[in-house]
């Protein structure tokens, strides 16, 4: 076991506060959404008073994807006025997703990027810990957006690469792929049977943007609403495929799942599918069309007779 030590203070935090203060003082934004230190660790905070920007922090506990506040379903946040949003490299891909799908205007938000060297899996800690293979969020391994380009401001110094977790998500997906079909079915139906249909995965997702979710449609009812293995299967598959080629791997659905369904494995598998079939990797470039809703005349069709 690696020694768990407190992480060194994030060097860019003064810059972060200064940028936020200047944006608020100049009236460029009405509110800055970032992170603060609270009783149970880091948590999101809305700052509208320039004097309060000293609340803002950034460290390895800042796991939350704050882009979920830009989701058009949360129009009460948009009503606050123009938003300054603190974003990590993974989060900013979700902003690109909203722009790509015309759910957000670039003028509605000022993006304050923070150079991130990975975050912890567990954020409810009194102090930020240095990342180790045991405590790092597995999704951070192999991060490809450590220098975001979509941001208006970028603070912090270049960070070291996140450590390799004990078992990467890719390795866990590969381990499932190696199992026989029946065992994969047993694994997933067992996982889905735990689902209590709280829809936290949907609520927290920055890209689950439908005003009326298919799961709430009752005439006809496509997905059974009760927490029952058959409807749960339908719901979890539907949620996953609706994010195919859109999911930015921020891991919020899995983090919020109260019963611990490994949704990141499904999401990662879908990322592999669109990568292998359509050479598509989700990025923070909003001009890069998502694979579903797009097509090529020569798309693979080996599964079609």
């Amino acid at each position: 076991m690696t020694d768990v030590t407190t992480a060194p203070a994030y060097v860019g935090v003064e810059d972060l506060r200064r940028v936020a203060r200047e944006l608020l003082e100049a009236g460029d934004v009405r509110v800055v959404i970032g992170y603060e230190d609270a009783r149970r660790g880091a948590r999101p905070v809305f700052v509208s008073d320039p004097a309060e920007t000293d609340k803002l922090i950034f460290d390895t506990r800042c796991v939350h994807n704050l882009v979920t506040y830009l989701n058009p379903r949360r129009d009460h946040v948009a009503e606050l006025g123009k938003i300054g949003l603190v974003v990590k490299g993974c989060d900013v891909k979700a902003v690109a997703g909203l722009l790509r799908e015309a759910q957000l205007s670039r003028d509605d938000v000022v993006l304050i990027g923070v150079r991130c060297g990975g975050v912890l899996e567990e954020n409810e800690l009194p102090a930020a810990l240095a990342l180790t293979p045991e405590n790092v969020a597995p999704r951070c391994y192999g991060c490809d957006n450590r220098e975001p380009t979509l941001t208006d401001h970028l603070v912090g110094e270049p960070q070291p690469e996140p450590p390799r977790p004990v078992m990467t998500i890719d390795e866990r997906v590969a381990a499932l792929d190696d199992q026989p079909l029946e065992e994969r079915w047993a694994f997933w139906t067992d996982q889905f049977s735990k689902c209590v249909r709280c829809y936290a995965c949907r609520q927290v997702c920055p890209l689950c943007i439908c005003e009326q979710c298919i799961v709430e449609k009752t005439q006809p009812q496509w997905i059974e609403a009760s927490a029952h293995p058959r409807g749960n299967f339908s719901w979890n598959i539907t949620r996953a495929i609706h994010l195919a080629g859109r999911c930015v791997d921020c891991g919020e659905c899995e983090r919020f799942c109260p019963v611990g369904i490994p949704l990141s494995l499904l999401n990662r598998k879908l990322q592999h599918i669109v990568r292998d079939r359509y050479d598509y990797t989700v990025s923070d470039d909003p001009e890069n069309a998502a694979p579903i809703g797009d097509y090529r005349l020569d798309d693979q069709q080996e599964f079609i007779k």
Partner: protein
Amino acid sequence: MTDAHTDFEPRITAFVCNWCTYTGADLAGTSRLHMASNVRIIRLPCTGRIDPLFIIKAFERGADGVIVSGCHPADCHYTSGNYHARRRFAVFHDIMEFVGVDPRRMTFSWVSASEGAKWKDVVDEAVANVRELGPYDAYRALAPDAQEPWPAATEGLAPAGEEVAS
């Protein structure tokens, strides 16, 4: 065909597009082609109209297998519906396999209005595949108390293999 499933008649739901495969299936019928009678066809405007949820719903309602078929690439009545569907079904096919659904229960095909014979082959092959796999008990076990929503596959129909006077 395995011995265990010799008396099993698969229930197969086919989602087909109006312009090509439905007409192709119609041609198979008017051509008096003899094929397995286990398929129930649901006609839709286009493969682009077929949500993967349809397939899940068919399994929920007791289907042992599903066929999805439409116009060949470049032949879509709406120009690009089948291209969009192709991507959607590729992703769906792969993720269903990942969660343990045997892909042989899901047959995807392009059948044009003139390909009655191909439709017969698609149906016969899908039925043979599903017959070999047996009833989809694993899916039904997700809701063991649910009613059997369909009559037996061949109820009220001419038994397979028997010549129909023309």
